[in-house]
């Protein structure tokens, strides 16, 4: 089935079989390997991308369902070399260690400050409920989201 979707501003038109997962479209068809898969029961969040402005799990969606959608992945955040404020905040606050959950974590973090411009710590932590990190214990990630929110506030 032919589908058309825009990823990080670039449009793709591709014939795919219905069972192809969106994450496999991103990784294998579009070659954007920044989005990672960490489980099979949609509970780890490493595969989070933005679809039409909403943070969704790209491992729990078939590419055909995304036909006509506007997708942003971690590779689409920086523009011409300048990092997105959330990327910069993760870097400054040591919000990552092994980096495997980081792309999904950053996309979920951006959704938090989209919906809560100056989030409380509780709002940040509940916004990250769907994203597992095994290395950081989340504390520096919370600091990063706070810093990004404060930075965006300037």
């Amino acid at each position: 089935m032919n589908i058309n979707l825009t990823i990080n501003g670039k449009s793709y038109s591709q014939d795919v079989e219905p069972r192809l997962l969106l994450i496999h479209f991103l990784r294998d068809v579009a070659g954007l390997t920044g989005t990672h898969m960490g489980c099979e029961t949609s509970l780890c969040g490493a595969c989070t991308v933005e679809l039409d402005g909403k943070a969704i799990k790209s491992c729990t969606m078939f590419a055909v369902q995304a036909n006509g959608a506007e997708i942003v992945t971690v590779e689409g955040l920086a523009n011409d070399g300048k990092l997105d404020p959330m990327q910069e905040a993760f870097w400054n606050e040591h919000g990552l260690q092994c980096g495997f959950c980081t792309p999904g974590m950053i996309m979920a973090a951006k959704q938090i400050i989209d919906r809560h411009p100056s989030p409380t710590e509780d709002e940040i932590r509940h916004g990250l409920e769907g994203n597992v990190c095994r290395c950081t214990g989340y504390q520096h990630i919370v600091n990063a989201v706070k810093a990004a929110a404060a930075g965006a506030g300037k």
Partner: protein
Amino acid sequence: MIAQKFEYTAPKSLDEALHLLSSGAKPLAGGMSLIPMMKLRLAVPEHLVDLRALKDLNYIREAGGQLHIGATASHYEIESSALLRQKCPLLTETAASIGDVQVRNMGTIGGSVAHADPAADYPAALAALEAKFVLKGAKAERTVSAADFFVDAFSTALQPGEILREVIVPIDDARTGTSYKKMVQPASGFAIVGVAARVRQNAGKVSFVRLGITGLSNHAYRATAAEKALEGKPATPNDIQNAAALVTQGVDANSDLHASADYRRHLAVVHAARAIGTAISRIA
């Protein structure tokens, strides 16, 4: 992590969808329950009809003194709906407790209700709201009450080929206090138990109470014995405790790794008392 092959159709109209469903295709909405089962090959549907393609199934509006919610309204749309926050806060509070941000962005009320997972959150609220479900088949449309809709684990009143088109809930004005209290299963986020309460008071006495329970048994149910025990009472802590103690009466509680049947029953009583107390505290 790879599903079996299947056919996919994004229908242009509800009729086209219903036609396909009547010949054996299965509905796909948010996919939050179905797709993980397909990836594990626990579910192997041959043909999926994507109801999210039908934009006209996604609405939240007030009409005829009631609130109408289209089947493909997402949990987030419900959670963040100004109309519902004002006129059906129980539903928005329940929606906000489902899964996580990503699941709430995609999961739909129609999908969740039709899937009827014994530990899903919505059924408790919809039972307490005495919601009506509009079921549409290729030929006819009928309305079923929440009590009749939830039959057993993953079993509802839906007939093959029928879809849930709309959920109708009453308007709760400020005189009705509502609350949803849930004991969260720490791994999957499902409800070990979930209790939804709606309460009104008149001259210091409870004039109206509805209690919906999920997670305890195979399907959500109204705790009518507990409701009767509280009606007409001043709702002292003792009254609330006595009523809450009846929410598990005659119910065969399930047990699993995360909670034995006894503990689940205990949790149902605790969360019922808490839901009633909070609901009363929210009565304007």
